[in-house]
């Protein structure tokens, strides 16, 4: 069982590609990113600025392009509905640490539908297969929904004396 102890057992998670049905009955597919940059860019152009986290995704076009250059070099998992990207998890290697930084974005109209959980499950299973073991992230204090999700998959709080909360987990597979 996963939960808040800083260890994530990925053997409980489905590996992409897989499909699931959202609470309101839409069939969403979770797949590893495979060059669909234009679709991701469209998703981010539609993104509600209120859901940005610590400056990402950037709003200005050239900054968004540069940001996509950075994150698409990492390990990326995308949720699809009828050919459009509706959610994205990215893991980017931190050059100074042997760890990957995780971020998740779900389009507003797909939030609260289980898309975020499935995306996290799929992306951590995929990351484990790619050899990733240590994952960290930061989350803004007021983002309780995200913090709950991260705890559910095993992340524990490592630093909370600053404006954002830092969390980390170690991926294992007990298969």
């Amino acid at each position, binding site marked *: 069982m996963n939960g808040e102890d800083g260890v994530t057992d990925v053997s409980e998670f489905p590996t992409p590609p897989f499909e699931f049905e959202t609470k309101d009955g839409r069939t969403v597919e979770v797949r590893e990113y495979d060059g669909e940059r234009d679709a991701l860019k469209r998703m981010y152009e539609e993104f509600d600025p209120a859901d940005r986290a610590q*400056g990402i995704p950037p709003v200005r076009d050239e900054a968004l392009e540069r940001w996509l250059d950075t994150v698409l070099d990492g390990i990326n998992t995308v949720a699809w509905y009828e050919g459009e990207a509706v959610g994205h998890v*990215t893991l*980017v*290697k*931190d050059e100074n640490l042997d760890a990957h*930084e995780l*971020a998740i974005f779900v389009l507003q109209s797909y939030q609260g539908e289980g898309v975020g959980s499935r995306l996290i499950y799929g992306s951590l299973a995929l990351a484990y297969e790619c050899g990733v073991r240590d994952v960290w992230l930061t989350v803004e204090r007021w983002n309780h929904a995200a913090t709950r999700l991260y705890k559910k998959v095993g992340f524990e709080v490592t630093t909370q004396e600053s404006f954002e909360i830092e969390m980390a987990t170690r991926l294992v597979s007990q298969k």
Partner: protein
Amino acid sequence: MKTVLGIGGSEDSLRALEQTLNRTVKTDDELVVAVVENPDSPHGAEEVVEHVNEEVAAHEADAEVVRLEGHPGSALVEYAEDGGYDEIVLGGGKKSAMGKIQMGSIAEFVLLNSHVSVKLVR
């Protein structure tokens, strides 16, 4: 405008120095550059003072350089409040591998404690 720029030598504080010096030369603002000890900075205070003096000279700016001892955030706030400054200027943080903005500990302290307006340079 009476401005105090806090600098500890981190990348973002060096950018803030550059931008503030450019602005000062144009506006004739009164500027004090206060060098503090930032434990997260790759450069020591001596080195930072030297760099600031060079930059001030290079910009032909009229700025005073001071060194503040002790806890960097509280030293800056005290200096600004006691001196009747209008504004504290600081570097606006660094970016993680992912590109997320992460604020430095000095900026966080100053934002929460200062009665003087605070400007973060991005």
